[in-house]
């Protein structure tokens, strides 16, 4: 019986276990029922992720699908696997190794641009913004931030928007984001008109801080992933945007390539594009689309398009009382 391993980075963001892993496993069951999938979660510890890769190889994994914690320390995983002729797929986050076989991701830079654009559109000249950035060790966080700056830097430079406060969020930890937002509000004396948050966890934390000041719902707050929690906040009008990717499509693409690799078949028809990674290696690449969800319409779109999220899941607690749910 063939086996492949899926290595998740952490459990801070619900998407990995709830959406990506679930979609990958179910797709695999569909298209290759004979192949067993083992799922690991490294809890944000790179040495644990390496151990998990070793254990997967010891168990005889034929392919490693890795969402690395960071791009560098995952290189040894791809290299180690290559020594045993096992291919490695980088999922969502790139692995900076010559042995990376395949990568799947949306245009994150564009999604960062969308986040910033949304906040810009809903603020006016002279308004002050807060930027809650992602984990400094996640390569995606920098990419997202670059996209945000592409939209915002000219406005900062011209003084049309004021950068009031910015902070990184180690490990995407919402507790850290919460304190950042508290401090931003204190320092700016509540003179904040918009929050550019790099993902939903940070957005949720920012909204809790805003609520304490009675300011939740009065300004645009961006996000990423469209978690259930974020969609509830969107229905309540407290979060105003989230960037959504078809995670099921990403998982499906990864699964299809995985099956080809298990069977030793060529997969170039599935991945026509190539990108260069951090060590200059050409990696076969499949881009997926993305969507900037706004308000209740955005929630409706996501529920319709994301098979892992249902209306019942979103319409719970406070959100159950909103017009959308009735």
């Amino acid at each position, binding site marked *: 019986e063939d086996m492949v391993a899926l290595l998740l980075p952490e459990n801070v963001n*619900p998407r990995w276990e*709830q959406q990506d892993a679930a979609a990958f496993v179910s797709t695999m069951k569909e298209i290759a029922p004979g192949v067993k999938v083992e799922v690991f979660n490294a809890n944000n510890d790179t040495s644990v992720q390496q151990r998990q890769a070793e254990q997967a190889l010891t168990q005889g994994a034929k392919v490693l699908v890795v969402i690395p914690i960071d791009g560098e320390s995952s290189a040894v995983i791809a290299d180690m696997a290559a020594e045993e002729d096992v291919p490695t797929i980088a999922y969502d986050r790139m692995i900076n190794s010559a042995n990376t076989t395949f990568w799947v991701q949306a245009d994150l830079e564009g999604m960062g641009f969308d986040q910033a654009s949304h906040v810009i559109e809903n603020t006016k000249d002279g308004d002050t913004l807060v930027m809650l950035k992602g984990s400094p060790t996640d390569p995606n966080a920098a990419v997202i931030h670059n996209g945000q700056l592409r939209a915002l830097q000219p406005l900062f430079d011209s003084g049309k928007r004021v950068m009031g406060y910015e902070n990184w969020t180690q*490990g995407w930890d919402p*507790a850290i984001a919460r*304190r950042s937002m508290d401090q931003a509000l204190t*320092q700016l004396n509540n003179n904040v008109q918009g929050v550019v948050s790099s993902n939903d966890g940070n957005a949720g*934390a920012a909204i809790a801080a805003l609520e304490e000041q009675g300011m939740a719902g009065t300004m645009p707050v961006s996000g990423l992933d469209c978690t259930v929690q974020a969609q509830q906040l969107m229905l309540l009008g407290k979060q105003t945007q989230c960037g959504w990717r078809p995670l099921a499509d990403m998982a499906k693409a990864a699964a299809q390539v995985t099956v080809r690799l298990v069977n030793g078949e060529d997969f170039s028809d599935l991945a026509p594009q190539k990108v260069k990674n951090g060590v200059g290696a050409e990696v076969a690449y499949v881009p997926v689309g993305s969507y900037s969800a706004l308000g209740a319409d955005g929630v409706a779109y996501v529920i319709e398009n994301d098979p892992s999220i249902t209306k019942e899941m979103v319409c719970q607690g406070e959100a159950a009382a909103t017009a959308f749910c009735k």
Partner: protein
Amino acid sequence: MQPDTSFSPIDRLRRMRETRLGSFVPVLLALAAIWVYFGLALPLWDFWSDPDAGSIRFIFLSPRNIYNLFMQSAVIATLAVGITVVLLLGEIDLSAAATAGVCAALLGVLVLAGIPGWAACLIVMAVGVIMGAAQGLLIAYVGIPSFVVTLAGLLGYQGLMQKILPTGNLNIGDPFVRAIARILIPDLWGLVMAGLLVLAIAALALRRQAERKARGLELDTNATLWGQVAFFAIIVFAAVLTMNAYRSVPLLIILLTGVTAIVGWVSTSTPFGRSIFAVGGNAESARRVGMNVRRIRVVAFGIVGLLAAIGGIFGASRYGSVSYTAFAGGSLLLESIGAAVIGGTSLFGGRGSVWNAILGALVIGSLGNGLDLSGASAADKLMFSGAILLLAVAIDALSRPAGNGAR
């Protein structure tokens, strides 16, 4: 037993440190050092070094930021109070933060399932007690060191929290739960409560002094007596007035103070509390005078479980959500133990106080709060917080009367 009458001022100072009040002094010094640094030194320095700046803003010491600081430190403080109890015993608890996480997660799931907020809180507190006491049983009756049991507890409870919260986080909208962190005590009420508290303390102190006289016991000097009352009054009124200046005193802070007062009273003024200190000072002596050392350990771990649960409720209320990282994954654990130790509680047992843990939590909280205001990079912040912490605690250590050299 005739008292020696020739006291130098230095003797008086040293004696002062041996009193109840005196044990506050070191950690208050540390806290003062940090507040002076962030509140005065840093803004002044910024002002001088940047000629463009229009005016100095003392943000750190503004009522609003002090209010924030108290709220930000509340969860750490609650856990630190509980952890102090087991440290007094000479044990350690690595699982307190994870216990708080499990309780918060459970709270979230319960209110979502429609259980009224107050009932959910009670259930969760009971669960916390059980989680703590279960570890206490293993420590006391099986004889595994508490470090190992609670390390296993940390792992197990982290897993449990993930089980309860498969999505990693959960919004908490329940009005009762949210109210804990949101309700404010009207300004006047706050002042009245503070006044009554100070009066009660003064009355108690006077009655005690009278009783001592009646029974022919050594008397505190009037200076000490009124000094303590005045000191207490200043702290209480300063805190209330500061918070009133921004908003009002939040219910959360009153609850925290109340819980600490109860735990503090139990630990210093009941036979049970006495036995905690006795076991921490010399477990074998405590056992030999007939104390049930094992049961005391189990109860102490039950208490830390209860406080972890309360910390979890406070956190859920304040964050408006429960997330894995806010409790189990982050730095809450080390910060809570650190707060207790900075408060002067010994890791070797028998020495410390729960009130000091609150001050220790403010020390830790001030670091993060102050550095986040300063706008330094993440790396600089970490390095600064290490350095400031050291400096603050060194001031305390150096101000202590010269010891014997060896611990």
